[in-house]
């Protein structure tokens, strides 16, 4: 049993000391980051506090309908947010929405079916939130990369189409490259975990007083869950989205200009 770690509001405020140092360094170096750091600090405080109270209510209710509603809302906002980063991909919202929904639901169903976690709010909400958040980043990065690659490789795609290749055949090398560039950082960080850095869940559990082996086991479960769900999200997003670059007649559409 883990002893709960209680932090007072004063202790949270004290942790801002390091943020203040970063702001001072930014001003000193004229890096023009002070405002962004301030916005990020305030937003994270408000958002996490709000979600903390919301989760408290959902934990107390322990009703799966509330859990599903919360995770569905996260999927929706995740798809909206990721779309902003994949502006060069036409109609990226639906592929992103489906990718996040599929990654989140498949992961949770699997961990519950395998008996890793019980189907209770206190497990499904944090694991689901983590999966959806990471899947969002992975899908957005994969689509962003794909958009840039299609713009850079338009001549090669059209030259391949001109030989009678389908859209799928012409874009396949780019899909492969996009997925690889998306997955390699996560695979590398999974390889080095425990050697170069301690992942967040394990740190949280150790701070909360859990036994190290329990912390490691939970961290391993979450690492494997993340690896699978992130791959699933990126794979789904690029395979659904690439079609939007082409017309029915396997013609490459005019691409949107990148935004500054």
């Amino acid at each position, binding site marked *: 049993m883990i002893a709960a770690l209680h932090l007072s509001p004063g202790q949270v405020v004290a942790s801002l000391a390091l943020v203040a140092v970063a702001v001072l360094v930014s001003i000193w170096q004229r890096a023009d980051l002070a405002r962004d750091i301030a916005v990020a600090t305030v937003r994270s405080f408000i958002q996490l506090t709000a979600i903390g109270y919301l989760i408290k209510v959902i934990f107390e209710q322990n009703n799966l309908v509330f859990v599903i509603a919360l995770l569905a809302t996260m999927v929706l906002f995740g798809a909206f947010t990721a779309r902003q980063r994949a502006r060069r991909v036409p109609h990226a919202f639906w592929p992103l929405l489906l990718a996040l929904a599929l990654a989140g639901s498949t992961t949770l169903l699997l961990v519950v079916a395998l008996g890793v976690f019980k189907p209770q709010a206190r497990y499904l909400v944090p694991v689901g939130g983590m999966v959806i958040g990471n899947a969002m980043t992975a899908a957005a990065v994969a689509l962003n990369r794909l958009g840039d690659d299609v713009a850079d490789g338009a*001549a*090669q795609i*059209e*030259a*391949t*189409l*001109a*030989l*009678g*290749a*389908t859209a799928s*055949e012409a874009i396949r*090398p780019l899909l492969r490259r996009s997925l690889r560039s998306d997955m390699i950082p996560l695979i590398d960080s999974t390889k080095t975990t425990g050697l170069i850095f301690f992942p967040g869940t394990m740190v949280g559990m150790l701070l909360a007083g859990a036994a190290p082996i329990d912390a490691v086991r939970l961290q391993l479960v979450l690492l494997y869950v993340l690896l699978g769900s992130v791959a699933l999200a990126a794979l789904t997003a690029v395979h659904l989205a690439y079609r939007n670059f082409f017309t029915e*007649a*396997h*013609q*490459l559409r*005019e691409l949107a200009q990148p935004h500054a």
Partner: protein
Amino acid sequence: MLFSLRDVTYGRGGRVILSALSVELREGMTALVGPSGAGKSTLLRLLNRPADPDIGTVEDRGRDVRDYDVLELRREVVLVPQLPALLPGSVAQNVSYGPRLCGRPCKLEKALRLAGLDGKFAERAAQQLSVGEQQRVMLARALALEPNVLLLDEPTAALDERSRDAVERTLLDLHERLSAALIIVTHDQAQARRLGERVLVLDGGRIQGHPRAIPA
């Protein structure tokens, strides 16, 4: 008639490139000449269908190109773009790419020979060739499909004089040996006269004057 364009208007990025263009292209070797931005490359694109006109129709032997299976059309009417855009891999992999897509055997050596390349090129890495050699591999890749029509967009634009003369000789040789029709886009009027049985002048998205037949 090989191709008939009727009242074709095409624009891209808010700019009208072809404006109510009507023109007929016959079998044989046709050179399409005009300044940069005249719409020559766009016209070729409408024949191989990486693009369709906004208004008007393009017919291939009396039938709207949109009525053909687009993939089959592109294997019959093959476009060789202006800039080499080869796939990573060997010359052989590039040349056999088109036939492999449609499950046909590839006559690799024949395609290389027709494009003026030695069979030894087959195993060389495509990305490490000179621009002139890459241009010839692009031509070999198109010829491997044994097309009825070959569309060549500025096939010598990136080449020096010597390589240009060699490619021109290859094209004239191709025309004699193959039954395929050749439509060559060039900004060089002298080259158009050297290569084309007929020369069409395109400027400002319209045909200027009448097609000129070059005396034999």
